[in-house]
């Protein structure tokens, strides 16, 4: 299902956010802030950008999507479910015994995830390997990596950034969730990242900076990125906890699930936003 108009994309992202709150409430643990913050980008990917087929998840010419900061997988699971990969009711099995929806992504349990991740700083290197394989195989799909600002503390992330430069890859797009928080505080206080843009540029990447909640920017930037003959980094300035006011921009919600009361509050707010959207022309 491809969504092209703004309102339908916003409604879908709202649904994904409601799913995230429900999943985390049932799980009793997990990472709400980053998941809510990336709901728009995952919606844009699964409902507009990606070449994919939910019923043939491993079709050869699909675009590859790696979620390197695996802890925000609830956003991906919700978007995948809404896109038709598996029934919505399975979302409640997140983090439960015998579930395919592991607390952090498990490719062996759910192959459409492409890669088991969540030890930070590994996804981009695997994306580089997949991009090299695509070149050897003369395939033309795009390899997308979603990574976090926090995992740019890891030296291995920068090894991978330079590898894409060395091999002059033109089929890889790294989308950075630049939400300025990580588990123990604001990113600039935990570890100085300074300008990610200048760093990526120094490694010969093309860098775009976007508002990660603006669908038009997300979609047009990716479209442009695919035409370029170099690796592309899209720094998405995101609001962690987006859509749930008491979670927004608070690092305390990086890795804590809402209890019943907070979940109800969050859902009421999201449903109000939905009604408002429906009234819009």
């Amino acid at each position, binding site marked *: 299902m491809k969504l092209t108009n703004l309102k339908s994309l916003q409604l879908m992202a709202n649904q994904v956010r409601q799913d995230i709150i429900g999943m985390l409430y049932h799980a009793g643990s997990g990472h709400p802030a980053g998941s809510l913050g990336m709901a728009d980008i995952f919606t844009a990917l699964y409902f507009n950008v990606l070449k994919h087929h939910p019923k043939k998840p491993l079709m050869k010419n699909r675009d590859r999507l790696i979620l390197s900061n695996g802890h925000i997988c609830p956003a991906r699971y919700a978007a995948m479910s809404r896109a038709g990969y598996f029934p919505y009711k399975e979302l409640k099995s997140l983090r439960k015994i015998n579930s395919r929806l592991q607390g952090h992504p*498990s*490719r*062996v349990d759910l192959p459409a995830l*492409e*890669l*088991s*991740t*969540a*030890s930070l*700083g*590994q*996804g*981009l*290197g*695997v*994306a*580089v*390997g*997949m*991009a*090299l*394989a*695509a070149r*050897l*195989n003369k395939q033309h799909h795009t390899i997308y990596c979603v990574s976090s600002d926090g995992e740019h503390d890891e*030296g*291995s992330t920068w*090894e*991978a950034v*330079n*590898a894409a430069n*060395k*091999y002059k890859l033109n089929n890889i797009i790294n989308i950075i969730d630049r939400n300025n928080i990580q588990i123990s505080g604001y990113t600039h206080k935990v570890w100085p990242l300074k300008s990610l843009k200048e760093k990526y540029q120094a490694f010969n990447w093309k860098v775009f900076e976007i508002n990660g909640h603006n669908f038009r920017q997300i979609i047009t930037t990716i479209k442009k990125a695919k035409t370029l003959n170099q690796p592309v980094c899209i720094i998405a300035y995101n609001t962690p906890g987006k859509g749930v006011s008491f979670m927004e921009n608070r690092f305390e919600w990086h890795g804590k699930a809402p209890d019943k009361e907070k979940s109800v509050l969050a859902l009421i707010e999201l449903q109000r936003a939905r009604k408002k959207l429906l009234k819009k022309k």
Partner: protein
Amino acid sequence: MVKKTKPLIIKEPRSTRDGYGQALLELGRNKNIVALSADLTESTRAHHFEKKYPSRFFQCGVAEQNMITMATGLALEGKVPFASSFGVFLPMRCLDQIRISVCYNQANVKLVATHCGLATGPDGATHQALEDVAALRAIPNLTIIEPCDYHQAIRATKAAAKLRGPVYLRLHRAKLPSLTTSQTKFQINKAQVLQKGTKLTIIGSGPILNEVSKAVEHLNFKPEIINCHTIKPLDKKTILKSVKKTKKALIIQDHQISGGLGSAVAELLSQTIPTKIKIIGVKDKFAESGSPEELLYKYKLDSHAILAGIRNLLK
């Protein structure tokens, strides 16, 4: 007919890393085989492959962690990557990448470590991988193989390419006489009985088995000698069959005593047929520079130490 690859010009004796280089070159006829190196291309003998198949060779620089994740990406797209470095860097520098990216994903990556063991010699303690098997043995989905000589390294490399799943090849720098021939059969997970015998089972892996050969010449009986080239999964059947007969076991490894082949065998025997055993290996120490012979003597892994161990066990 497949065109035969010219043999390399390396005269006997040859090392296990030479065997790997030769096998990788031959395997290169298959277009899905790719190789990665973290700068140490010639030292790991991947340079023959690099020269012949440059488009399928990936130089990764001194960045082992990224080499392993890149190999994972290649493997998940159907390639069979051989990633090589020294044992002290691979697995040590990139253990997390091996655990999550390679093993948890069941990615078909072949991890190749050369310069393992004390016999690495004059480079000293920083370059003698003595803890690699201990670090890897507990990780699920991984097969660990340590061939004993050049010929077996060729066979092991080819068998690793055929096996679908992560494999760690433990290789060496030292050039030592061959214990097997190019005709000797090799099967992963099937230990090779080098010598049938009585009274005692000697179990070992890698070129250190040469010291066993030297030691047993001084005995007035023939002990059973098992080349346990596959450290994980362990060939329980062959080991139990032998130890049930001999009632005693000596395990030798060019590795720390903790967590190596000796530990694997002890875990097996203590839970099935508790047996008097002796494990010979490095005793919780960093070693030093020296020739392989000097090091094996000083750290008590050579034929003299093995002989003393045997006499002690049979007392």
